[in-house]
């Protein structure tokens, strides 16, 4: 008795279809997103060149609920692949009581002779 045909051929077809779908998706993505890439990169460079905001002195941590803006500020246009992921920025804040001195994350050690740190 002849063996029943295996389902291997159908699996191969599925694989080919999936591969083709992915290839078409990437191709169309690059076709439509490509023209805006230069403008987006230029915009990102301009943003990066702006001076970072100075950490403000606060006397106590205050958390306030912010109203949801009417006009969404989410970026519009195509989502581009590549580029740098957003980086977490740690800001050392100033608490109450001290009042003054150098603050923020920068190196203030230009005139210091040495530093104290955990041993």
């Amino acid at each position, binding site marked *: 008795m002849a063996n029943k045909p295996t389902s291997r051929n159908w699996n191969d077809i599925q694989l080919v279809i999936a591969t083709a779908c992915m290839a078409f998706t990437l191709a169309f993505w690059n076709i439509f997103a490509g023209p805006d890439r230069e403008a987006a990169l230029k915009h990102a460079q301009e943003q990066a060149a702006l001076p970072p905001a100075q950490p403000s002195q606060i006397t106590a941590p205050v958390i306030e609920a912010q109203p949801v803006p009417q006009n969404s500020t989410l970026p519009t246009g195509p989502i581009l692949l590549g580029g740098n992921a957003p980086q977490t920025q740690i800001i050392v804040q100033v608490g109450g009581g001290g009042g003054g001195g150098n603050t923020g994350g920068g190196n203030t050690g230009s005139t210091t002779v*040495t530093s*104290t740190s955990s041993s």
Partner: protein
Amino acid sequence: MLHRLPFRAMGGEMLAIMEQDAEFPSIMDKIPGWFEGWEQTLSRFRPASELSLLNQTFDQPVEVSDTLWDVFQYALSAETITHGLVTPTVFDAMLEAGYNQSFDNLPRYQYENEISGFAPANPLSMIIWDEKSQTICLPQGVRLDFGGVAKGWAAHQTVERLKAYGSALMNAAGDIAISDSLANREPWQIGIRNPFIKDTDFETLKLHRCGVATSGRDRRHWSQNGLARHHIINPYTGQPAETNVMTVTIIAPTVMEAEAAAKAVLIVGSEEGLKWIESDPVLAGIIILENGLTIYSQRIHKYL
């Protein structure tokens, strides 16, 4: 002009600075030798050190050297002023937490340790000592680790020896002793390291004769069977302190007081720690929390 001598000792980076118009003071060449001698007496990581030999002798009085006796007395003071939070009897708790060798050689990820369970550290009052004969008698199972007290003591001793030759500063791995103001009466400017950004200071202190020390869990930490560990032991639990504080910097009349206070504040956490700093008129401090928030004590503004 300022003469600087960096060297390595006690498992950390050391820096001695002296102000003198003449050429490099010859007395500074002796400093590494002093530290070597103190380390040979006080290190728990050296099997032949005087402390290691003492830690192997139980229930009989052992006559100890002037150095070990002096540090032991400062350890007693530290335990008293911190209500038992800073004590050298955390030796076995350190081993239990996996800190069983010099930190330079300590594996940062430990998986095969047999943990028998943490137990509160024994109080120093269990130890019998005699001032007249300069002897210490450890009860069975009690061993000593002077840790930061020894570093602070060494920094203090160094500037005491140097001050006859000029204004001096000794930084013993973060524990800093200052003998006097600079010659023009100006203060020494000392940075406080930012625990979140490597090799960066976030604040500058202007200090005259005093001690300053920082205690933290940002450097000496490791993983034991998947659990985060660090080297500041809470003697009441026998485990690494569970705290919201990342680092504490304290200014005090002496570096030994500063070191003990900083460790105590880290153990009890920011709220109780700040109250404690404010309650003692000779202390000032800066507490950095693990979320980046920084708390300044009221008296710290005198030093900024």
